[in-house]
């Protein structure tokens, strides 16, 4: 499988480990990512609020390049563009959606693109998030088949952040309020997934630069929630979330007098480890909060299968009420 690939700025800098690990994992799974040549900034989360048309044109240039370069030749899936960064994914898919909805906007954007000798026909690129491609195109079975070193004993809190599942318009691959695809992927790798009610809550975004106290409180809530559930680490799929929770953890501890030491890793790093790759090959060691103590637990505890207690038979004198029946989880 071959996809167009839009790394975005984060994966070249602060989220380098994300890039390294996803490429390593992709190679294991037989997925190829062909980087869009001459891509530019996605506008991040701010530019759209500054000047809409320019922001749309900025993003559309990437779509136009992707449409031209993923035209189905050399075995690439036609018009499929993968963005691993949640902000890039949201901007690209949102602009593509708006252009398809509004012919007036599309013609305005195409006027701008014409200056660079480009044009974009709405609908010709389908923007996908990396997680979507790995769980839906590759599939859990194929991932499970690659696991060489199951992450038994590791308790992870799956953190989706706000951008990847919201807004819930078409093309979103998971529930906007309570996504579960990353949970299932982590279970596929053998990890124990803790309930993480704040899994789709805000990490503070760029508030760390504008309103530090607001951001630190939001980060504190997430860390506290993961700690309350005894998670060994938080697993993310967004460079922004990873940066905020990782780089500002010390500041949170300083401000609130807490002592959190929760490593924040990208989900592809754990996939790589489970596939038997070395920690260095998946960029472990670049994080601020050292992940090695937590990773040392892998295999130390009993496998997840033994943890599931046999169904309790109600004992005499036990007055407790049965819990609601849930659909059987696949893993």
């Amino acid at each position, binding site marked *: 499988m071959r996809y167009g690939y839009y790394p975005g700025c984060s994966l070249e800098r602060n989220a380098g480990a994300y890039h390294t690990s996803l490429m390593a994992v992709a190679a294991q799974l037989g997925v190829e990512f062909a980087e869009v040549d001459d891509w530019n900034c996605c506008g991040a989360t701010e530019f759209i609020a500054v000047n809409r048309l320019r922001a749309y044109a900025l993003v559309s240039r990437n779509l136009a390049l992707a449409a031209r370069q993923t035209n189905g030749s050399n075995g690439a899936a036609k018009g499929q563009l993968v963005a691993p960064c949640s902000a890039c994914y949201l901007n690209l898919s949102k602009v593509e959606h708006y252009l398809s909805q509004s012919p007036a906007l599309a013609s305005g954007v195409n006027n701008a693109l014409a200056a660079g000798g480009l044009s974009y026909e709405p609908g010709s690129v389908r923007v996908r998030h990396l997680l979507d491609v790995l769980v839906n195109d590759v599939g859990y079975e194929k991932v499970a088949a690659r696991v060489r070193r199951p992450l038994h004993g590791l308790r992870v809190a799956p953190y989706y952040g706000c951008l990847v599942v919201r807004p819930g318009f078409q093309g979103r691959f998971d529930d906007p309020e309570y996504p579960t695809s990353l949970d299932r992927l982590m279970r596929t790798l053998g990890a124990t997934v803790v309930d993480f009610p704040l899994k789709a809550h805000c990490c503070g975004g760029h508030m760390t630069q504008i309103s530090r106290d607001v951001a630190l409180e939001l980060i504190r809530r997430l860390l*506290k929630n993961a700690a309350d559930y005894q998670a060994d680490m938080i697993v993310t799929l967004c460079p922004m979330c990873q940066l905020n929770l990782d780089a500002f953890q010390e500041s949170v501890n300083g401000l609130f007098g807490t002592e959190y030491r929760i490593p924040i890793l990208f989900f592809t790093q754990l996939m790589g480890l489970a596939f038997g790759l070395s920690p260095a090959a998946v960029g472990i060691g670049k994080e601020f909060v050292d992940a090695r103590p937590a990773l040392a637990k892998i295999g130390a505890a009993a496998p997840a299968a033994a943890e599931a207690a046999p169904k309790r038979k109600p004992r005499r004198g036990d007055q407790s009420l049965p819990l*609601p029946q849930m659909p059987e989880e696949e893993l």
Partner: protein
Amino acid sequence: MSAENPHRTRHDPHATPDAGHGERVGVYVCHCGHNIANTVAVEEVAEWAGEQPNVVVARDYKFMCSSLGQELIEQDIQQLGLNRVVVAACSPHMHEKTFRSACQRAGLNPYLFEMANIREMGSWATDDREAATQKAKAQVKGAVERAVRQQPLEPLYVDINPNTLVVGGGIAGLTAALELANAGYHVYLVERDSSIGGHMAKLDKTFPTLDCAACILTPKMVDVANHPNITLMTWSEVLSVHGYVGNFTVRVRKKARYIKEDLCTGCGTCVEKCPVRIIDQNFEVGLGYRKAVYRNFPQAVPKYPVIDTANCTFFQRGKCRACEIVCPTDAIDFNQKDEIVDLEVGNIILATGYEQFDARRVPQYGYGRLANVFTSMEFERMVNAAGPTAGRVVLRDGVTVPKRIAIIHCVGSRDKNYHEYCSRACCMAALKFAHLVHERVPEAEVFNFYIDIRASGKHYEEFYHRVLSEGTHFIRGRVAEVTDAARGPGEEGQLIIQVEDTLIGKQRRIPVDMVILMAGMESRKDARQVAALFGLGCDYDGWFTERHAKLDPVVTMTEGILVAGACQGPKAIPESVAQGSAAAARVAGMMGQRVMKREPVRACIDAASCSGCRICNTLCPYHAITFHEDRKVSEVIPALCQGCGACVAACPSAAISGAHFTRDQVLAQIEGILWDARQPEVLWLEPQ
């Protein structure tokens, strides 16, 4: 145009009575107030119609359906010798009967009348006056062409079977069955569950009067079981329905109970001694347990238990027989088989009810994940004295009494992600819960999170005020989430309600011990299959479609099939009872006539042309075509034929014709509709 003459006339006194084939057509174009006249140039249509061949008179009139409009037709028939009438107005569903009666009163066979629907199919569908007028002309032309080819027909009369089938033994079905039985008609009441009573049997109290649900329901259940005019068939399901209004044949499967009803005394010893205990997902909605041989509740009607073979040790592993050993009357019969029963009925009332919305579909409210989040039906069982906690309000551990309780309204209702509609009953049930909590746990605080309080009903608003005065907190805002993720010490170990309080314009976090989700009503999962089985329609949400939302709420588009209660849309008990009674009254009214007039629209096979291919035999959905082996020809049984026309269209030899829809009538109508169609132009494309 004189002031005394309210209607304008285009009457050609020189038109020869023998124009065409001697048919003298009157055309009447209705304004329908502004409904048609605003979009269609009705005067122009009438004037144009007056110039068409065979048309003797064409008029337009403000309301053709008024008695003045009808008298106009009657007068013209008598004075101008009309022998065909065309009315261009609304849908035949609305007024075909009206105008046919007018024709009949004037001595004209009613099947020489034709209706052109220029309202629903014209003026209501567009704002384009010119196009609507043009279409109206085409429809009128088609109707005229068809009318001149129509033949007088005589209606068929059939006897009405005086028995009625009621499907569903909830409060709506019980009411309908009792009303009909009391009126002296026989009723078959078929219920899928092992007992009648429906959802109402699960409730403790009913709003707003707070009378005990069981106390008002069980007498009705007993009446149904003992009524000489009611055949009660529980643990039974309808398999197929054949026939038509007045004469349905319904096949019912009586599932095996594995209990001999003639021997069982209902003593309950078998239930007591059964060693298998499983969670009851049906009656106790997962909050309580039942045995493998069980009754839904102590007052279940009928009193006989059923054996759940999927969980019974004997059926699964071939041993145990505890129930058989302890039964004092030898009523256990492991060899019982399902029985198939055919019923002959004249009418069918569907009262199949609703299902509760699955609160797991709103993951942010945590049902199934957070132990102390309950659904409203779970709470109903909890506060019921006969329920799993014997009426104690406790947390999931079965012991701890909650101090702070949140009731979240509109779960799955009034929400475009799930159901856009309001489920009507939940606001009042939520108020009832608040009251019951105050009654059972006086020190507890209750928070109601609502969008609007919908308390429209007799004494409902008064009940709301009563609950307000009892000290319940009402917070207006849709709850964002229920979470156990505490932000600080004040929230640890509790469930936190995150909500925007829209009355003070602030985000609030309210810690509670227990959450009740007022899950709304939705149509049953198999509503569409049931609708197909009985030949009626469902709306987008799966509710059965009534003939008219306001004026005909219990009758469906299929004659003889009626609906009552929540299968037609969300309803509380009073409305369900009202509909049950209404449906019974409609059925009784029809049976009072003893015979029924049926449309003479029937298929007829010309034996000389029939090749005996039998395609029509299998195609007929009413099994109305029989095959004569000796002569190798098929024949339609007029009493069974519904006039659907499937065989007419399918016959490869064109041997079948449908009365009132003959080939030449339909083709002439099409010709008429296409009166102004030009020959298609042939376009030559320039080679590039």
